[in-house]
Each structure stands twice: as C-alpha cells, then as structure tokens.
C-alpha cells in the first residue's frame, strides 16, 4: 500500500478536484461547516480526508459529490463546475461513485440488482447492464453472491457490493464516506485491499472520509480538517 503524505502536489495527469474558497453554512448561517476551504486533488490520486467529528469532512464530500451546494467559492470535479451545474443527477450518475458508511443497499434487491440500479437510465442495454454487474461483482470477489440480498450478507460483503455499485457507471472519482466505519477489522482489511486492487485496475481518483488513522494512512495523501478548514498537521486525532 502507498504511504501517507501531506503534500498538495498535483499529479502528472492533471487535477481531478479543485476547491477554492468554499464556504458552507447551515441553520441560516449560524453553523459554518466549511470556512473558505481550498484544496486540489490530482486525477488518479487516493486521498483520505480526516479530522475530528464536526470538522466538515462529510459536508465537503457531499458538496464534491453533488449532493449539496456550497454557499460560495468554486468547486470543480472531473471538469464539472459544481456551482453552475445544470444536471446534478447526471453528474452523480455518470461522473462520481458514492460509498457510504452504512452500505445503503436496497434490502429487497439482490446484490446484482443493487449494482445494476445506477445503470438504469443510462444508454446501456439490459444485457450490457447484466454483464457489467457480473464483471463488477467478480472484481469485488462476490460473483457467487450475485443473487443474495443484503440481509443475507455480512457487513464487509455488503460494503463490497456498495463499492461495486459505486463503480457501475465507471466514474472518474469515487467518494467514500467512512466506508469502514461499521466493519470489523477483518472486513476493514478486505475493503482496503479491494480499494487498492481497484486502483490498479482502473484510473480512478479516490476521496475517502475517515476517522480511522490507520485507514487514513492507506491513502497517497491525507488531508486534515479542523473547523471547516484544511490544516497542515492533525489536530485532536
């Protein structure tokens, strides 16, 4: 695995994510979640975002994933200006993949169907969707679980299905919000190995929000946050 670092150097293949002076408040401005935050992440880079609870890391991820809008500043993800974005659904469907702490799979659908759900509404034919789901489940090591529903799987297996779902439409950026937060140590290890394997197989930028220092250290680079800002050194971890 790559060792962690704290530099902000850009990779050779260009910038995947650019954030400049972004502010986000809640409760009519009473709570400032992000405070004039700036950062850049290179294409193909694996970055972890870490910091104490309430530091704004999940808010940052939601903004970058197009789930919410910033009050001010500039956000660009995979060439898309998120402040002027007209089709946030298309952006979330085609440009980014999302993995959540709670796997957030649909419990009444089997693993394969869960992986296929984001592909509904794309140009892929039914046969192509099926083949793509098989391929992804194979990649995450769950080919034999294709017809099991989430309640019939372990936490780690569910999270691997969630990763397969996030990759369904071949996103340029994969956002993971505490993906190992609800897993046992063996499952955490398996998910992290999977992320590493995926990076070898495809040129995907990975942004992972995590509390866990050991998990954060698996990234190429760690971004520390405190009180809605990026800081150079970890505080309160």
């Amino acid at each position: 695995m790559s060792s962690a670092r704290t530099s902000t150097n850009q990779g050779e293949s260009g910038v995947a994510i650019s954030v400049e002076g972004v502010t986000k408040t809640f409760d009519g401005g009473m709570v400032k979640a992000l405070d004039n935050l700036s950062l850049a992440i290179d294409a193909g880079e694996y970055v972890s975002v870490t910091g104490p609870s309430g530091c704004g890391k999940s808010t940052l991820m939601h903004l970058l994933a197009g789930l919410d809008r910033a009050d001010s500043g500039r956000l660009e993800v995979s060439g898309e200006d998120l402040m002027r974005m007209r089709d946030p659904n298309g952006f979330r469907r085609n440009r980014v993949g999302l993995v959540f702490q709670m796997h957030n799979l649909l419990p009444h659908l089997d693993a394969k169907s869960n992986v296929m759900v984001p592909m509904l509404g794309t140009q892929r034919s039914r046969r192509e969707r099926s083949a793509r789901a098989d391929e992804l489940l194979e990649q995450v090591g769950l080919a034999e679980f294709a017809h099991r529903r989430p309640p019939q799987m372990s936490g780690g297996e569910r999270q691997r299905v969630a990763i397969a779902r996030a990759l369904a439409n071949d996103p340029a950026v994969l956002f993971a919000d505490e993906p190992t937060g609800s897993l046992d140590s063996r499952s955490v290890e398996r998910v992290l190995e999977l992320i590493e394997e995926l990076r070898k197989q495809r040129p995907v930028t990975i942004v992972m929000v995590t509390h866990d220092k050991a998990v954060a250290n698996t990234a190429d680079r760690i971004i520390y946050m405190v009180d809605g800002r990026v800081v150079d050194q970890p505080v309160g971890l």
Partner: protein
Amino acid sequence: MSFGWLIWHNVWSKKVRSALTATAVAIGVMTVVVLGVVTDSLRTTAAGVLRVGAADFTVSQKGVNDILESALTEPLLDKVSHVEGVKSAIGVLLDTEKLDDAHPLVVEVGIKPEHLKPFGVQIADGRAFGATAENEVMVGIHLAQDLGLRAGDTVNVTGRKMTVVGVFNTGNTFGDSTIMFPLAPFQAYERQPGGLSLFFVKIDPGAKVAKVKTAVEDSSPLLVAISSLMEFGRADRSYQLITAADHAATVVAIAVGAIFVMNAMVLSLVERYREFGILRAIGWSRRRLIALVFGEAMIIAFVGAALGVGLGFVAIEVLQELPSLKGILKPTLESWVFGRALLTAVLVTALGALYPALRAAQLSPQEAMRRE
C-alpha cells in the same frame, strides 16, 4: 434487471403493503361498479317502456317524476296524429301492479286490439282480447313463462280473476314482461275515461324524426317527445335523479378511494424515505423517481380494478336477492363496466399517488438517507 422489472419487484416484494393498497382501490372500484350497474339497471327498467311499441319516438307528459305517471288524453292523441309528418300515433294507458314477491313491479298496458299489430305485438298462443272484454288479458311471453301461464288460464290481476286469452311476443324483454288489457275497460278500471299515458308515434317515410318531434312538442306545451334512452331524462325526473345520484356517488367513491390510497402510499413513502434518498444520491432524477412510484401505483391500480370488479359482481348478486330489489334489479354486465372500473382504479390510484410521488421527488438525498 429493467426499470419495469424493478417496478414489479417493488410491488411484489412488499406484498402486505401492496395488497392493502390494492384492497383500498378495489373498494372504490367495487362501489363505483355496483352503483353504475345498479343505476344502469334501474334506468333501463325505467326507460324500458320506450323500447316497446315499434315507434320512431314516444310522446309523454312534460315534467312528470315517473313516466308511468304521464297523464295524456285522447284529444291530445288526435292532435298529435294530425301533426305534419306523423304517419300514425298509438295511445296506451300504463299502470304497475305487484303480482307476487318475485314480480313486484309488473307493467300493465291498456291498448286497443286493433293497435296490437302496429304496436309490434305478435300472438304466440291463443288470441287477442276483445275491445270491450272486461275480464280478458294478454300476457307477455316472459311473464307467462315465469308464472307458468298459457292461453285459457286465469290470473289474479287488478284484484280480479282474469282470463289469459293470449300470450304475446314483442321481441323486447320489457314488453314481454307486461300484461296487456283492452284499453276501454282498463281506462274504466283506472277511472281515467279517455285517459292515456304515452303515445307511440311513427313518421311518414322520408320525414325527419327531429323535425317531427319538434312539431309534436310545438303542438302542445304539455308534450315532450323522446326518441332515445339519452333523452329519457327529459320526460322522467326519476331518471334524472338516478343519473345524478350515480354521478355524485361515483365522485364520492373516487374521492374516498383516493384518500385511502394516499394514506397507504404516504405511509409507504415514510417507510421508504431512505430508499428514495439512496436512489437520488446515485443519480436518479426526480422524474424517474416519480415514474417508479406511479408505475408501482398503476400495477396496484390494475390489481385493484380486477379485485374490485370481482367484488362488485358478488355484491350485485347479493343485491339481486334482496327482497326489496328482487324483480326490479336486472343488471346486465357490459364492457363499459370494465372500462369504468379501470378508469376508476387509475383515477383513484393516480390521485392517491400524486402527493407521495411529488414528495418523494422533492426529498433531499442526504436528509432522506439520514432517516431510518
């Protein structure tokens, strides 16, 4: 997996919720179907008299509550007979009588024997009654079969023992369930000398029905001319009331059904907040989410429609056996019943699903996913 499959799967995987919603739709459909069939049956029964008489149109007294209460006179018949375009006009006097529990509303027709043939009456058994025969009647073939009567038998009617001199056939169910009397004795019995109820008018070849009808109505302000069931309400207020009651009850049934469905779908929405949030988070558009909710609702609508029609048939069978409706309610199940059921189910479900679908589409993905 396709979008259609997902819609079906969502309905199927939540069987209890889907079944309860379909039951709510079915109750609305059943109510509308039963009301429709019953009121249609009552309307058909009420207007059945128009179908007898082999006429181009029928003339009644204007503004009566029940066409059987229409009170016309022989001088008016004479006047109508002389209207331009009228070839012939036959006057009949009508009344109703309860023969027994199975025949609570038998229509009695007073008619001159010479008018029987032009009126479309064919003797199937026996002979026609005499013009002044006080104790002679003819019985329609359906009624005769029901009562087991043949020419030569006697029947208790108008409080007297009458001889059935003939059994007749008009080719019309309503007409073949009537009893016919010679006009003059019947007028005397009804204490309406010279009284008539309806005129059955035939027009000259080449004449226009609408034009002749207008001319007849213009000949006396007391008269209204009817040439179709659609126009029956012009003469019969009961018919208008039945129709109005049917429409009002249908609207109420649809509204109540929609509220039931909305209730079930709103509960289901709350239960599925997280699911909708996930779908929005992974890129589903609002339109696709609305299509999903509506698609599920439409499957439930079709199931509810089928169930409602089935329940409706059972309810109609039960109603027919009620003593107060026996012999009056003669429902016919026609294709419009199914169309009306489907339309009701779709309306009820669409109305009930509208708010939940829009609400689901407005959910913020983060807010929805935070809900358990």
